[in-house]
């Protein structure tokens, strides 16, 4: 993305640039298709010509690091995943790739079917559009990442090659002991090979070795430097670079990206491995200094009081897909409620049929949706987690559509099962009124008041406007697709998925009865789940959450689970007591544990069902920081600094590491100014070489980032405004207003 300022100058080189770049990718992995018998035979371990279905899943990787895994779709050659995954990219990367695997039921290693690799520079081009990508083969030779710095010095009699350093190399099972092979090809098919020393345990090795090549063998034409990882006799290729040599050339050192192995491609068959449909949304934010956005910010925050609201900046920017950053910014500055009030008034004024009020995808409904997701996610989890967990565990059959049943005698039993689950969820939702986030309640209150003002004779609208958001657009979609809302990470089987659909339908239609006061009419088989007591309870719930001030609102008395995952941790070592007869811990002692962060503590246990082995109160977390790779020769490590000890944790990938650091930083006390970026290993802090275990940190703690970074949101809004300039122009002409403040004129 190239930013241009008012005079159409590129901002890239102008010095305004902060080194604060962030990438956001939402990848939607959809399906592999078009695999038939002919193609299957090219895959090694299946029998010739067979069309045996497979169990397929995909992983998303940043360079070679897996950061997301889809469900496994069983027994198919046309799997459909329909999954969405959104994340912040915490580091630079070259490739985003999606690998497709065939799960092996017997052996432990799943077989890779192929991959789709997308270069970072291509992401903008394909962003936002769905594409079918052909799968390409995955071999040891193609899995390459990282770069290498090489210099060549040419003299009349010899050639000197300096291999300085490499960085970001592929790790093989978490290890990397690289060595460099330097080959010079001469005229007349001659060549000479030299080898560097092995650098142990480093994916960013510093070689600093020089290799002399004699010119007596002929004229050098090409230099090839390849990297290999040597473990127990096994040689793993890590990448190579080919540098053409022209006789006189002397180059200083350059960085080269490592490339996949160039093979003699003569006998390579072009295989059809199938195709994968993917949709990627990729945003790279280029953030300028905050003052640059002051005008824009002022205009956005003033928008609620602009009359008519159609001439406000927010209304205008709503036309260019800037809803998400707008909502985040308005929430950050506590202006979301008046903004939505103002827009809702406008929309209601234009309603001809109260039946379909807020039914379109209007600015109000999009903003409401975004606000509920932003402020209500914890609430959603807290409310639905328990009843959903029960459904996943019990897996009672709830099918009540006779057309989908083989044996209709089970109908009564299935009905009872479904009613039991509906009852449970209705109870959980109606019982959650006191925890509904205040921002959501205020919004519901505003909508209800606006409905009362706009349609004085019609009480029903007051309920339908609220339920149209809190049920139709919040609870019902979450029940239907809990994976999309992070309510579970486990795979949902077909029958359970159908159960969730039925519950979601039932809840929605019962809720609709509150405002329409007529029993559901549509599918006949669904009529039986409708119960009057539920209607009464839900009606009360709608009243409570839209009353002002909220009568039951209370601060949370039970801690809310904020994040959980299985990660590795090192045994904790006290800084206070001297190690009692024990040797200080080295680099080992890592164990897999189930981690859980709630609003009051961080704890870990052997697994999810066990009691915690250790509970760290939030008040004891002084700071959370990254840990350098060298400390444990492990990546994605962070440390939880407590008064007398440090907990070292290894996350599963860089995205997860970033998320944990982010949320912990937001929760914790941030009470230390200095920390050690490396661990205390074998009696010494690796970062500052100090042997004093109690020594305060050696490195200044960096600035902390809030969950919402207003500058980042503003940058995003502005970038969107530039991208959709022509569309804005049209709207502006229609509204006849000026955009002075946005700096777009």
């Amino acid at each position, binding site marked *: 993305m190239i930013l241009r300022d008012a005079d159409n100058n590129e901002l890239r080189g102008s010095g305004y640039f902060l080194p604060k770049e962030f990438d956001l990718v939402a990848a939607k992995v*959809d*399906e592999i*298709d*078009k695999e038939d018998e002919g193609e299957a035979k090219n895959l090694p371990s299946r029998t010739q010509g067979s069309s045996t*279905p497979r169990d397929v899943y995909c992983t998303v990787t940043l360079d070679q690091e897996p950061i997301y895994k889809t469900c496994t779709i069983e*027994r*198919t050659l046309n799997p*459909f995943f*329909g999954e*969405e995954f959104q994340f912040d990219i915490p580091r630079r990367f070259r490739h985003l790739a999606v690998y497709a695997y065939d799960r092996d039921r017997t052996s432990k290693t799943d077989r890779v079917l192929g991959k789709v690799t997308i270069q970072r520079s291509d992401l903008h081009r394909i962003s936002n559009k*769905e594409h*079918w990508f052909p799968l390409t083969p995955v071999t040891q030779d193609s899995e390459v990442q990282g770069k290498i710095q090489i210099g060549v010095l040419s003299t009349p009699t010899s050639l000197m090659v300096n291999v300085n350093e490499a960085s970001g190399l592929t790790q093989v099972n978490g290890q990397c002991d690289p060595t460099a092979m330097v080959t010079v090809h001469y005229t007349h098919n001659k060549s000479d090979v030299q080898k560097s020393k092995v650098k142990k345990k480093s994916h960013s090795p510093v070689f600093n070795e020089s290799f002399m090549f004699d010119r007596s063998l002929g004229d050098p034409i090409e230099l090839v430097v390849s990297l290999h990882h040597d473990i127990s006799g096994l040689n793993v290729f890590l990448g190579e670079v080919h540098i053409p040599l022209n006789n006189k050339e002397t180059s200083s050192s350059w960085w080269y990206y490592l490339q996949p192995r160039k093979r003699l491609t003569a006998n390579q068959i072009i295989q059809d491995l199938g195709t994968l*449909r993917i949709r990627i949304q990729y945003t790279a934010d280029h953030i300028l200094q905050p003052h640059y956005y002051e005008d824009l910010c002022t205009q956005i925050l003033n928008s609620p009081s602009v009359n008519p609201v159609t001439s406000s900046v927010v209304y205008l920017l709503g036309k260019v897909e800037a809803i998400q950053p707008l909502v985040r910014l308005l929430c950050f500055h506590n202006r979301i409620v008046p903004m939505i009030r103002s827009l809702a008034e406008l929309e209601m004024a234009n309603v*001809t049929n109260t*039946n*379909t009020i807020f*039914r*379109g*995808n209007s600015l109000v*409904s*999009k903003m409401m*949706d975004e606000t509920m997701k932003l402020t209500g996610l914890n609430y959603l989890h807290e409310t639905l987690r328990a009843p959903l967990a029960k459904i996943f565990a019990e897996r009672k059959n709830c099918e009540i*559509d006779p*057309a989908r049943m083989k044996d209709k005698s089970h109908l009564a039993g299935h009905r009872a099962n479904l009613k039991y689950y509906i009852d449970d969820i209705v109870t959980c939702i109606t019982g959650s009124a006191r925890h509904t986030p205040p921002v959501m309640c205020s919004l519901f209150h505003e909508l209800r008041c606006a409905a009362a003002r706009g349609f004085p004779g019609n009480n029903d609208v007051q309920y339908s406007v609220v339920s*149209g958001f809190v049920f*139709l*657009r919040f609870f*019902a*979609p979450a029940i*239907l*697709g809990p994976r*999309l809302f992070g309510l579970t990470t486990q795979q949902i089987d077909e029958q359970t998925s159908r159960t969730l*659909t039925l519950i*979601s*339908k039932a809840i*929605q*239609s019962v809720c*609709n009865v509150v405002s*329409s006061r*007529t029993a*559901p*009419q*549509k*599918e006949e088989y669904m009529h039986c789940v409708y119960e009057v007591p539920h209607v009464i309870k839900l009606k009360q719930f709608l009243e409570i959450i839209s009353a002002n001030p909220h009568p039951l609102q209370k601060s949370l008395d039970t801690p809310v689970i904020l994040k959980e995952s299985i990660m590795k941790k090192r045994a904790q070592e006290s800084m206070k007591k001297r190690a009692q007869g024990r040797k200080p811990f080295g680099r080992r002692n890592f164990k897999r544990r189930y981690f859980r962060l709630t609003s009051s503590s961080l704890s870990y246990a052997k697994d999810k069902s066990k009691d915690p082995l250790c509970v760290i109160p939030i008040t004891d977390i002084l700071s959370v920081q990254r840990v350098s790779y060298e400390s444990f020769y492990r990546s994605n490590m962070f440390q939880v600094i407590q008064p007398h000890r440090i907990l070292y944790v290894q996350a599963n990938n860089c995205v997860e590491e970033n998320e944990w650091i982010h949320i912990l930083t937001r929760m914790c006390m941030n009470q230390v100014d200095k920390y050690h970026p490396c661990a205390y290993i074998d009696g010494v802090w690796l970062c500052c070489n100090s042997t004093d275990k109690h020594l305060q940190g050696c490195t200044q703690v960096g600035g902390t980032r809030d969950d919402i970074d207003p500058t980042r949101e503003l940058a995003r809004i502005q970038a969107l405004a530039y991208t959709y300039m022509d569309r804005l122009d049209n709207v502006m002409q229609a509204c006849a207003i000026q955009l002075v403040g946005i700096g777009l004129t």
Partner: protein
Amino acid sequence: MREYKIVVLGSGGVGKSALTVQFVQGIFVEKYDPTIEDSYRKQVEVDGQQCMLEILDTAGTEQFTAMRDLYMKNGQGFILVYSITAQSTFNDLSDLREQILRVKDTDDVPMVLVGNKCDLEEERVVGKEQGASLARAFACTFLETSAKAKVNVNDIFYDLVRQVNKKSPEKKQKQKKKPLCVLL
């Protein structure tokens, strides 16, 4: 009897359910009850052939659009509905069609474009000519309907059945029935 998987798509409140229920049960649903995912079966006779229609009435609400891909993958014929009283519902359909073609990975998909609520002539904002020209661009059939006044309701479903027949004649189905193990 041959089965036809029909999917009804379009924005919220355009009358997808009203059309479907009118066709299946012969009643008009006055009160609005937003759909999440409803399915109906109806047996009809088209051109002397008995057909079993399996109709999937989908959600127009944006929060449920994640499911659309799956519906499209499984559907054989598609009814794209807008309301002649709301321009935005008409504008939404181009993206929807594109998505269908992409999921199906072909340009030839049985499809009917439907402008509903034609009984509300005084509230009309999408002209009939607009609908017709979009249908030409889509290369599909176009009908204006009213679920309320029972105008052209059956016709959209019958037309779709004929399109499916034309695209994949019956004998192909028989072939498919051969393997003993059928994956659903």
